[in-house]
């Protein structure tokens, strides 16, 4: 391989955003017919680098060569013309259009708009690589994995030879991921090159031929997957040896704290989001909730926190002395006052829970601004709390007067989780708490959650990464289509088993 010219070569690429250096002198080679894994932690500059190849950003310095020729990629169109296609982590699809319309969007083909012909070609591509999609289905009616398929077909339709996939498995079940890998292998056989961005080591080992590692915007090394080990990759990615185990202390004196009975929830536009959900969350225990994104996790947490009206069913809060209180229909403020704390990290991070344009101290005030009698707010206490959180959780910020929008993802999350924990909750509801965090920050959050567990808090942890759920949680509730697919013991549950339950209620054979 060494003697061949790489199909894509990056040389000394540098990109800065203001004072922040996203990439510095990064080099990368991709050869024809190989799958390259681009490995790095969140914030290591993988996506930025790939965005420069696909024309979203323009590099400040450095050189890009395609098939040995130096090129300039100033806009996405340039990337297409060079046969480069990127599948972004957040899908770039227009919801109200059909699959076909999305796929042919922006193409400069000759002739009028012929959706039928396009649909035929899409079918052809699907048959070649083994996809299944309905060309006439609207995007907003699609599941996440269907949307991803549309994205991949879109890139192939444009005749891409180099495909870049940004964390493609983050939103898939293990079974769907396996399907995707098969497709990628088919593409490789077809002579296409694939770059897959990931921070999951098992995926690197499973699918890639070669792996390039980035750390904090710098190129670290490049190795053949065959000759690499998981530990070696981790050390290179993180920069120092890491312990890859998450603590799971034994629950202390678990007692029922939240009891959900036959809960059914419909969204505002009438879609059934939760169907007959029943479970109990115990104090001093972490209850994990697994499921493909959008299968009712959000609604469940919001219903407990009083933010989501339910159609039927009950949610009880059980006091130390065993007395029960109905939470449904109660004012969210009152529920929060009982010690039920919700920390939900949505995809855009700032969408709920924090106000981007307000500074840290003002964000701390969100929970406490009603305190005191007068018409004016108390500014001292939230300021102190902000100082405290910054110190305790090592939040990297110029000051507590910096708008949170300007902080990096990990720091934003620390602020949010820190504030929720500061209210000394009895129930901690948390969703995607480590989304987008690097390994160190993730472990810090696991640690925090475990501390709460030891304090006797009933923790409900909605997570994406099955490996983490299996290591962290005492029990795991699997949601599928808004129903409880099963509740498993965290210590004995198998990843495959959970994966099957995520796609089909009760698990069993997948199609």
């Amino acid at each position, binding site marked *: 391989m060494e003697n061949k010219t790489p199909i894509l070569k990056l040389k000394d690429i540098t990109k800065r*955003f*203001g*004072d922040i250096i996203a990439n510095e002198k990064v080099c990368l080679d991709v050869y024809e017919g190989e799958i390259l894994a681009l490995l790095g932690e969140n914030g290591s500059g993988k996506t930025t680098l790939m965005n420069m190849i696909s024309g979203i950003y*323009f590099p400040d310095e450095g*050189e*890009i060569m395609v098939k040995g020729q*130096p*090129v*300039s990629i*100033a806009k996405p169109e340039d990337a297409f013309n060079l046969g480069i296609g990127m599948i972004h982590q957040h899908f770039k699809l227009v919801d109200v259009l059909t699959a076909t319309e999305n796929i042919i969007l922006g193409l400069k083909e000759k002739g009028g708009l012929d959706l039928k012909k396009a649909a035929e070609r899409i079918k052809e591509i699907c048959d070649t690589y083994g996809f299944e999609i309905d060309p006439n289905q609207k995007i907003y009616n699609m599941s996440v994995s269907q949307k991803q398929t549309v994205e991949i077909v879109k890139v192939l339709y444009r005749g891409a030879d180099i495909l870049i996939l940004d964390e493609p498995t983050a939103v898939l079940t293990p079974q769907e991921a396996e399907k995707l890998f098969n497709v990628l292998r088919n593409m490789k056989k077809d002579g296409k090159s694939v770059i897959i961005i990931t921070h999951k080591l098992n995926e690197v080992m499973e699918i890639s031929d070669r792996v390039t590692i980035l750390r904090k915007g710098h190129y670290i090394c490049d190795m053949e997957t065959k000759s690499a080990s998981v530990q070696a990759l981790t050390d290179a990615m993180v920069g120092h040896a890491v312990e890859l185990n998450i603590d799971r202390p034994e629950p202390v004196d678990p007692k029922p704290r939240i009891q959900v009975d036959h809960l059914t929830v419909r969204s505002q536009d009438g879609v059934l989001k939760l169907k007959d959900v029943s479970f109990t969350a115990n104090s001093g225990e972490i209850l994990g909730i697994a499921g493909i994104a959008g299968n009712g996790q959000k609604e469940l947490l919001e219903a407990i*926190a*009083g*933010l989501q009206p339910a159609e039927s069913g009950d949610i009880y809060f059980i006091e130390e002395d065993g007395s029960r209180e109905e939470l449904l229909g109660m*004012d*969210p*403020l009152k529920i*929060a006052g009982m010690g039920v704390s*919700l920390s*939900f990290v*949505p995809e855009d991070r*700032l*969408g*709920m*829970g*924090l*106000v*981007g*344009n*307000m500074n840290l101290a*003002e964000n701390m*005030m*969100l*929970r406490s*601004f*009603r305190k005191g009698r007068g*018409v*004016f*707010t108390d500014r001292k206490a939230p300021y102190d709390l902000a100082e405290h959180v910054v110190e305790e959780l090592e939040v990297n910020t110029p000051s507590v007067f910096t708008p949170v929008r*300007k902080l990096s993802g990990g720091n934003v999350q620390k602020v949010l989780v820190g504030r929720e924990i500061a209210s000394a909750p009895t129930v901690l509801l948390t969703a995607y708490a480590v989304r987008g965090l690097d390994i160190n920050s993730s472990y810090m959050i696991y640690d925090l959650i475990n501390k709460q567990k030891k304090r006797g808090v009933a923790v409900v942890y909605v997570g994406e990464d099955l490996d983490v759920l299996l290591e962290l949680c005492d029990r795991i509730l699997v949601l599928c289509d808004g129903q409880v697919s099963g509740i498993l013991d965290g210590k004995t549950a198998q990843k495959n088993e959970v994966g099957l339950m995520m796609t089909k209620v009760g698990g069993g054979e997948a199609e």
Partner: protein
Amino acid sequence: MTNTAKTPLVHITRRKNIAWYRAWIVRIIAVILALILCGIITTFVVHINPIEVYKTMISGNFGTARKVWFMGQDLATLLIISLALAPAFRMRFWNLGGDGQALMGCFGASAVMILCSGSMPNWLLLIVMFAAAIFCGMLWAFVPAFFKARWNTNETLFTLMMNYLATQLIAFFVVVWENPKGSSKIGIINQRTQLGWLPDIGGNKYILIIIVAVVLAVAMFIYMRYSKHGYEIAVVGESEPTARYVGIKVRKVIIRTMLLSGAICGLAGFMMVASTNHTLTTTLVGGRGFTGVMVAWLAKFNPFFMIITSFILVFLGRGASEISTMFGFNDSFGSILTGIILFFIIGCEFFLNYELHFRKSAKKEVA
């Protein structure tokens, strides 16, 4: 660097921070450029030299004591309406209905004045007028707020249509209450008895409204910056999901804030009828609800900055109308100049939020 030639000429990035003084320099430059352009255009249209133009503008505002007071009154009226709109905008509620709400305030006050004069003592009459004005302003604000809160009905057009409804309603009453008969307008109300007129302070009828405006600006600053309500408004405006999540009742905040907005507009109407104009016409508010939107927005909803922005707009408007009367043009010349200066101030925000990087020459790159 083989690909330098194809590098985009200008590369734009978002600014992280900008020092406050630099921000002000940019804004001042924008205003100066706009004034220069306004001068050039005026010169071009009326064929006088630019220095004359600015002189006329200044004398239009500050020429005589009467003119200064008049400008003060104009400024105060605009400021009150802008202050009324600010909390709604802070909440991202596009209240374009300032005109209608203030007009309804005028209506409420003058209706009481016309129908109840003489049937109660003057102090009580004033209180009833005040209450009626506030109530009418609030009513006009409540309707769109209710539908926005309940069904997320587009408030921009809703409030706008409420303006026209108010105008038509007043047109109706102007005919009904016309005085003298057949004139199809309402003259000065209670000219002889001066019932329902607020007292002049020191023999000057413009001082009172200026005092009201200043007090209101301070109060609004404190309300928006330090009160619990103000904080809730900010949270709702920035992120509704977050507001709901911390238990703020978004609907309640929307309606409450709009009621406040309408009440202050109503107050402006009351002041116009009871203190300065003593009459009711369909054009009494004169588009200040619109101008107020821009005053509030340009000042980033800070009541003290709003004094500056409303001054700029009033200065231009009055200056242009002075030019118009001197040279026999119509008043709309002011709108043109206002438009130009607004374009510049709106446009200069770009330079506060973004940075331009020009392509470096290949030589520099090597060095």
